[in-house]
C-alpha cells in the first residue's frame, strides 16, 4: 500500500499554503472569472476620481461593459471601456461618471444617442462627455457671479442714487406702468383679433400689391397726361387740345373705377368671406396647438445685446445695451440704456407777461432708457414702450430664418417737431455678431438725419436667467 510520509504531507500542505499566501500578497492582474469579450471604446474625462478598473459601464442602468483601463493622457484621464459585442454605441452618445449611493462606487453612465449619427467603431472615441460636477468649482463660480452682481448694483446705485435719480426713476416707472396697463388692456381685448388681423393683413398685402401695380400704371398714364396738360398750358391752342385731355382723364377714371369694382367684388363676394373665415379658424386652432406645445417646453430666456452705431453725419457713435427678457417664445420685454452723442433733451416753457419762451437743453452725459414690451407674430414683431426715454413704437420683420431683421422705429412724438423715425437692417454674420446699417431720424427737421453703420453682439445669458428666476431679492 502506498503511503505518504509525514514530511511529504506537511511539505505539500505548506507548499500549497505558501502559494495561497503568495497569491493573496501579490494579487496581480485579473481574477480570471469569465471569458473576456467585447470591443474597446475610449473616452476622455477631466477627472475620474473614484472610478476604478472593472467598474460598470451602463446604459439606462443596464450593464453593458466594464472599465478596462484608466490612464493619463495630456493631463486628462483616458478611460478605455470594454463594451459587450452585442451592444452598439451611436456616435453621439454621451458619457458621464455617476455614483451609487453616498459612499459612491463610481461607474460610467452612457446616454444613448441617435441612430442617424452612425455607430462608433472598435477603438473609437466617445466625443461627448459630461464632466463630474465639482462643488468647489461651482462655489467659485457663484462667488464670481456675486461679485459681478455687486459691481452692477454699485454702478446702479451711482446712476439711480440721489433724490433726482429716484424721482426720475419713479417717473419712468409710473409712465411704464401706465403704458403697460394700457397696452395690457389693448392686448387683452385684442389678443385674438391680432392673429386674425395679421392673417388678414397678409391677404390684404397681396391685394394691395395688385392695387399698387394698377396704381403705378395709372400714375404713369397721369404722368403722360401731365405732360399733355403742360403742353396744353403752354400751347396757344388750349381749347382744341383740352377735349382730348378730358377724354384721356375720363379713361383713367374709368380704369380706377374698374379697379374699385374688382376690390368691391372681392369684398362683397360671400364665398370669399366664408373661405377666409374658415382658413382663419384653422390658423387659430393650429396657433392654439402650437402655443400649448411651446408652453410645455422651458421657454424663459434672457438675452443680452450690445449695439454700436456710427452716425456719419454726426461723426459720433451711439451705443445701446439691452436686456431682453423673453418669458414666452412670442412675448418679450426689453430693458436697456442708450448712450446718445446728442444726449437727452429737456424743454422748458416759460410764460412771462403773456409771452411764452421756449428753451431746449441738451444734456450730453445723460443716458437714455429703453423699456419696451413686445409680441411676435410669426415673422413680425410689434413692440412699444419707452424708446430712448420717449414713448414710441417699433416693428421688426424677420427673414431668412431670423438672419435678417428689418426694423422701423418711431418715437419722440412731439407737437412742435417731427417724430424721430429710424429704419435699419440687421444681418447676422456669425452666431452672436450682427452687422447693422440704416438711417436714423430721417425726417428730422433739426438736421439730425444721418445714415449709420455698426455692429451688435447678442447672446443668450443663462446665468442672468438663473438669477432672475431663482435668486431671492436680498433685503
Amino acid at each position, binding site marked *: 500500500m502506498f503511503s505518504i510520509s509525514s514530511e511529504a504531507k*506537511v511539505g505539500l500542505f505548506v507548499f*500549497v499554503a505558501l502559494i495561497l499566501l503568495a497569491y493573496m500578497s501579490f494579487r496581480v492582474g485579473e481574477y480570471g472569472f469569465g471569458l473576456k469579450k467585447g470591443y474597446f471604446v475610449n473616452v476622455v474625462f477631466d477627472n475620474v476620481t473614484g472610478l476604478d478598473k472593472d*467598474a460598470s459601464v451602463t446604459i439606462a442602468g443596464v450593464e453593458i461593459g466594464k472599465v478596462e483601463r484608466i490612464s493619463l493622457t495630456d493631463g486628462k484621464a483616458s478611460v478605455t471601456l470594454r463594451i459587450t459585442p452585442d451592444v452598439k454605441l451611436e456616435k453621439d452618445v454621451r458619457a458621464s461618471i455617476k455614483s451609487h449611493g453616498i*459612499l459612491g462606487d463610481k461607474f460610467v453612465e452612457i446616454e444613448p444617442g441617435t441612430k442617424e449619427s452612425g455607430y462608433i467603431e472598435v477603438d473609437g472615441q466617445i466625443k461627448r462627455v459630461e464632466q463630474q460636477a465639482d462643488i468647489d468649482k461651482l462655489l467659485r463660480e457663484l462667488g464670481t457671479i456675486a461679485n459681478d452682481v455687486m459691481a452692477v448694483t454699485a454702478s446702479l446705485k451711482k446712476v439711480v442714487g440721489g433724490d433726482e435719480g429716484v424721482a426720475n426713476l419713479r417717473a419712468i416707472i409710473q409712465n411704464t406702468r401706465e403704458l403697460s396697463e394700457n397696452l395690457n388692456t389693448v392686448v387683452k381685448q385684442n389678443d385674438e383679433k391680432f392673429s386674425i388681423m395679421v392673417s388678414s393683413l397678409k391677404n390684404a398685402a397681396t391685394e394691395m400689391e395688385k392695387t399698387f401695380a394698377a396704381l403705378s400704371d395709372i400714375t404713369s398714364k397721369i404722368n403722360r397726361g401731365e405732360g399733355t396738360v403742360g403742353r396744353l398750358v403752354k400751347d396757344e391752342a388750349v381749347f382744341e387740345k383740352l377735349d382730348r385731355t378730358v377724354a384721356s382723364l375720363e379713361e383713367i377714371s374709368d380704369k380706377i373705377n374698374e379697379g374699385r369694382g374688382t376690390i368691391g367684388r372681392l369684398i362683397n363676394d360671400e364665398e370669399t368671406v366664408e373661405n377666409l373665415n374658415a382658413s382663419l379658424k384653422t390658423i387659430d386652432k393650429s396657433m392654439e396647438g402650437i402655443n400649448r406645445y411651446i408652453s410645455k417646453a422651458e421657454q424663459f430666456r434672457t438675452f443680452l445685446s450690445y449695439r454700436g452705431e456710427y452716425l456719419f453725419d454726426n461723426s459720433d457713435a451711439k451705443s445701446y445695451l439691452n436686456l431682453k427678457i423673453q418669458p414666452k417664445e412670442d412675448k418679450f420685454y426689453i430693458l436697456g440704456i442708450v448712450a446718445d452723442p446728442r444726449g437727452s433733451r429737456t424743454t422748458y416753457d416759460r410764460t412771462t407777461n403773456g409771452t411764452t419762451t421756449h428753451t431746449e437743453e441738451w444734456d450730453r452725459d445723460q443716458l437714455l432708457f429703453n423699456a419696451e414690451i413686445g409680441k411676435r407674430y410669426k415673422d413680425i414683431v410689434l413692440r412699444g414702450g419707452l424708446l430712448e426715454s420717449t414713448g414710441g413704437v417699433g416693428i421688426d420683420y424677420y427673414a431668412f430664418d431670423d438672419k435678417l431683421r428689418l426694423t422701423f422705429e418711431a418715437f419722440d412724438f412731439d407737437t412742435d417737431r417731427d417724430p424721430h423715425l429710424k429704419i435699419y437692417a440687421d444681418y447676422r454674420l456669425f452666431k452672436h455678431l450682427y452687422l447693422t446699417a440704416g438711417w436714423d431720424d430721417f425726417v428730422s427737421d433739426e438736421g439730425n438725419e444721418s445714415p449709420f453703420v455698426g455692429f451688435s453682439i447678442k447672446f443668450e445669458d443663462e446665468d442672468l436667467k438663473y438669477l432672475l428666476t431663482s435668486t431671492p431679492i436680498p433685503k
Partner: protein
Amino acid sequence: MENIEEMGKILLLFISIISWMVRPPLKLRLIFKQMEFVGVKSIYVVVLTGTFTGMVLALQSYYGFRMFSAESLVGSTVALSMTRELGPVLTALMVTARAGSAMAAELGTMRVTEQIDALSVMATNPVKHLIVPRVIASVIMLPILTIVSDFMGIIGGYFVGVMVLHINKGIFVKNITRYVDLGDLYNGLTKAAVFGLILSLVGCYKGFNTTGGAEGVGKATTEAVVLASITILISDYFLTAIMF
C-alpha cells in the same frame, strides 16, 4: 494565588523549552510528525470554518451596508475581518480544540501511566522529546493554517457576495485589494504564530502536570482547552492593540 503560581510554572516551562530548543540535536522526524498532526489533519476543519465564516460575514455585512447603498464594501469587510481577526482566532480555537486537547490527553496519559518517568530513566529529556516538537510544529503550522482560513473565508465571502447577492465582482475584488494591506495579512499571521505557541504550551503544560489517573487526564484536557481558548482571546486583544 494558584493562578499566579500556574502562570509562573508555564513561564518556566516556556524557558526550558527555549533552552532545549536551541540545543542540538533536534529530532526533525518528531517535529514533522507533530506538524502533520497539528497542521495537515486540521485542514478540513479549518477550511470549513473559514469558508462559512466568510460566507456569513458577507451575508451579515450586506444587510448592514445595504442600508446606505455601500454593498460593494462587503468584500473588503470580509477580507479585513478574516485576515486581521477571524482567520487567526478561529484557526487557533479550532486547533486548540482538535490538537491542543489531544496534546494534553496524550501527555496526561503518558504521565499517569508513568511513561514520562520511564523516558527520564532512559536519559531522554521529556521536555525535549515530547514538548519541543509539539511547540515548534504548532508555531509553524498555525500561520499556515491561517493562510488557508483567510483564503477560504474570502472565497466564501466572494461566493455569497457575487453569486448570491449580486454585488459587482470587479468592485468587490477591487475594494478588497484597495482596503487590505499586506500588513493586515502578516500581522494576522504573527498573531496566529503566537496563538500556536499559547495553545501548544498550555496543552503540553496541562498534560505534563496531570495527576489523578484517567479522571485527571480528562480534567487536564478540559482545562487545557478552556485555558488555551481564554488566553488566546485575551492575548488577541493585546496583540491587536500593539500591532494595529
